[in-house]
C-alpha cells in the first residue's frame, strides 16, 4: 500500500470533518424513521411534505428572505457609498470613520444585539423583522465595504476621467463606466450579505420579537425529536440553495472577468 504523507492525511481528515456532517443531512432527510441513527430504515419523502405543509416554517422562511434581501440590498448600497468615498476621496478623519464602520466585523454579535435591543426598547420601537433588518444591515455593511473597496480600488481612475472628459456628466459616468465595471463586486457583496443575514441567529433571536426567522425557528424545533427529520429535509434544501447561489455568483464573476479581459485571481470556487 502506498504510504500517505502526514500532510495529505491531515488534508483528507479535514475535508471529511468539514463535509461528512453535511452529507448526512440528505441521507437522513430521506430516511423513513424519526431516530437519527444507522441502520437506515427506508426511503421516504414524507419529511419534505411535512416541511412544505408547515405554516410556521413558511412564515419563518418568508421573514428570513425578506430580511436577507433587504439587508443585502441596503448593505451593498451603503457599501458603494463608503467604498467609493474611501477609494476616491481624501478627507480629514477618513481612517477613523472607516475604522468605526468596519468595527462590527470584530465586535461580538451578542454585544451588538444586546445594545441594539436596549436602544430600540428605550426608544419604544416594537420588535419586528424590521428591527432584525437594522441589525443585519449593521453587521453586513462592513463585509460589503471590504468587498466593494477591492472592486473600486482595482478600477483605473482614468477610466472615469476619460468618460467625463468625453462629455458625460459625473452621474452618467458612474452609470456607464463605474457601475458595469464594479458589477462583479456588487454581486459578490450582495450574495455574501444575503448569506450572512440568512443564517444569522443571535441578532434575529434578540430583535425579532415574536416573528420567527429560519435560524431561530430551526433552533426552537430542535427541542422536539419528532421534528428533527423535517429539519434535516430543510437543511438539505438550504444546502442545495447555497450551491445554486454560489454557482450563479461564480458564473457572474467569471463572466465579468472575461468581459473586461482581466486575469482570474481566484474567487469562490
Amino acid at each position, binding site marked *: 500500500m502506498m504510504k500517505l504523507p502526514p500532510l495529505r492525511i491531515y488534508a483528507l481528515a479535514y475535508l471529511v470533518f468539514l463535509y461528512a456532517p453535511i452529507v448526512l443531512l440528505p441521507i437522513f432527510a430521506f430516511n423513513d424513521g424519526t431516530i437519527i441513527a444507522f441502520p437506515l430504515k427506508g426511503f421516504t419523502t414524507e419529511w419534505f411534505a411535512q416541511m412544505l405543509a408547515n405554516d410556521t416554517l413558511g412564515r419563518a422562511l418568508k421573514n428570513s428572505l425578506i430580511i436577507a434581501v433587504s439587508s443585502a440590498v441596503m448593505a451593498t448600497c451603503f457599501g458603494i457609498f463608503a467604498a467609493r468615498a474611501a477609494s476616491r476621496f481624501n478627507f480629514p478623519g477618513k481612517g477613523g470613520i472607516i475604522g468605526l464602520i468596519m468595527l462590527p466585523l470584530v465586535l461580538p454579535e451578542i454585544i451588538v444585539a444586546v445594545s441594539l435591543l436596549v436602544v430600540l426598547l428605550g426608544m419604544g420601537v416594537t420588535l419586528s423583522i424590521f428591527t432584525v433588518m437594522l441589525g443585519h444591515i449593521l453587521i453586513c455593511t462592513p463585509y460589503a465595504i471590504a468587498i466593494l473597496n477591492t472592486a473600486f480600488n482595482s478600477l*483605473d481612475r*482614468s*477610466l472615469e*476621467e*476619460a*468618460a*467625463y*472628459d*468625453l*462629455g*458625460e*456628466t459625473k452621474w452618467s459616468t458612474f452609470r456607464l*463606466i463605474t457601475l*458595469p*465595471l464594479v458589477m462583479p463586486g456588487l454581486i459578490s457583496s450582495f450574495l455574501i450579505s444575503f448569506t450572512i443575514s440568512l443564517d444569522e441567529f443571535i441578532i434575529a433571536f434578540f430583535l425579532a420579537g415574536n416573528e420567527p426567522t429560519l435560524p431561530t425557528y430551526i433552533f426552537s424545533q430542535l427541542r422536539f425529536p419528532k421534528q428533527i427529520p423535517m429539519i434535516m429535509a430543510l437543511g438539505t434544501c438550504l444546502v442545495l440553495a447555497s450551491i445554486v447561489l454560489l454557482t450563479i455568483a461564480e458564473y457572474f464573476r467569471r463572466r465579468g472577468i472575461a*468581459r*473586461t*479581459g*482581466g486575469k482570474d485571481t481566484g474567487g469562490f470556487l
Partner: protein
Amino acid sequence: MTTRPTMIEFRDVHKYYGDYHALRGITAQIRAGEFFSLLGPSGCGKTTLLRTIAGFEDISSGAVLIDGKDMSRVPANKRPTNMVFQSYAIFPHLSVQQNVAFGLRRDTRPQAEKDKMVAEALEMVGLKGYGARAAHALSGGQRQRVALARALILKPKVLLLDEPLSALDKKMREQMQVELIKLQRQVGITFVLVTHDQEEALVMSDRIAVMFEGEIAQLADPETLYRRPNSRRVADFIGVMNFLPAKVLGEAGGHIQVEAAGLGAFDIEAQQAPGAVTGGEASVGFRPETLTILYEGQTAQDRETAGTIDEVVYYGDMTYYDVKLDGVAAPVRISMRNVFGRPVLDVGTRTRVAWSPGALVLFR
C-alpha cells in the same frame, strides 16, 4: 512659419496641494495648431499642468484660458479638450466601436453619420475594420490608437497626451512618434504632450517647455533648447553636455571674454550666455558632437587643443571618447561618427581636439 494665434494661455498659475506648492507661477502661451511638449523629471508638475488644461485639477490662483476664454468655471466635460491617458483608459467592457463612439453619445446626429465618423476615426489611426473587436483583446499599440481615435472624434481644439508612449516598447514608441507627428499635421489640432523623455520631446515638438519643481525653466523650440539651454540644469536634462570651469574676463561690444580650463582665453557672442552671466566664476558647456578628434594630417578649422583618451565606448555607428584635456581633471565626452577605414582610437592615445568658441554656451 507665420505666427499663429494663441490657443492656450497660462496666467501666473499656482497650484497647492495642502502645503505642497506644485505649480509656481506658470505663465506661458501655447499656439494654435502647434505640437507642444511639457518636459521634465517626474514630480516637476508637468502632468498637473496638463490636467489643469483638461479641467481635472482646479488651480489655486491665476487663470487658464483656452481660445481666449477663461476656463475657471468650465468643468472638464464642457471644455474643448480631449485627453489620451497614460493608461489609455480604454473602457474594457465596450467594443472598439463603442469606445470610439463614446464621445458621440450626446450628439444628435443620425446613427448612420456617427457610424461613418467612427469608421473614419479608426481609419485615421490605422485600425480600419477593428470596430467589432473587444477592447480588452487589443495590444498596447492598438489601445493607444483607439484612445487617439476616441479623443479625436469630437474634433477638440486641443488634444492632451499624458505620457502616451511610455508603456510601449522602443520600436513601437519610435513608430508611434512618427505617426503622432503625421496625425497632428493631418488634423491640425493643437497637441499638448507630457513626457519625461527628452528625446521624444525633441523629435515630436514644435516647442517645448522644460519644467523643474513647478516652474518652467525654459520654453523654446527643440533646436534652441539643445543649442542654447539657458541653465546648466536644462542643459543636463536634455542630451549630454560637457562642462568646464571658466572665468569671465570682461564684456565689450556684444562680446564676452572668457577663459576656460583646457581651452584657454577666447571671445564669445553675448547671445551664447542666455543665463545672463555678469562676471567672475562661470562654466562653459558644449555638446559631445561639437568637438572633433583630429587624426594625422587633419587641421582644425577654428581652434585646437590637446588631451589624452581616457575611455572609449563603441556604438557601431558612433564612438564616444572620454578625453582628458590637458590641465583638466574631469574628462569631456566627444562623439565621433565612425567612418570606414578610420580606426577607433585606443585608451591612452594622445590626441588633438578641434573646437570652436561659437558652439559653446556660457553658464553662471
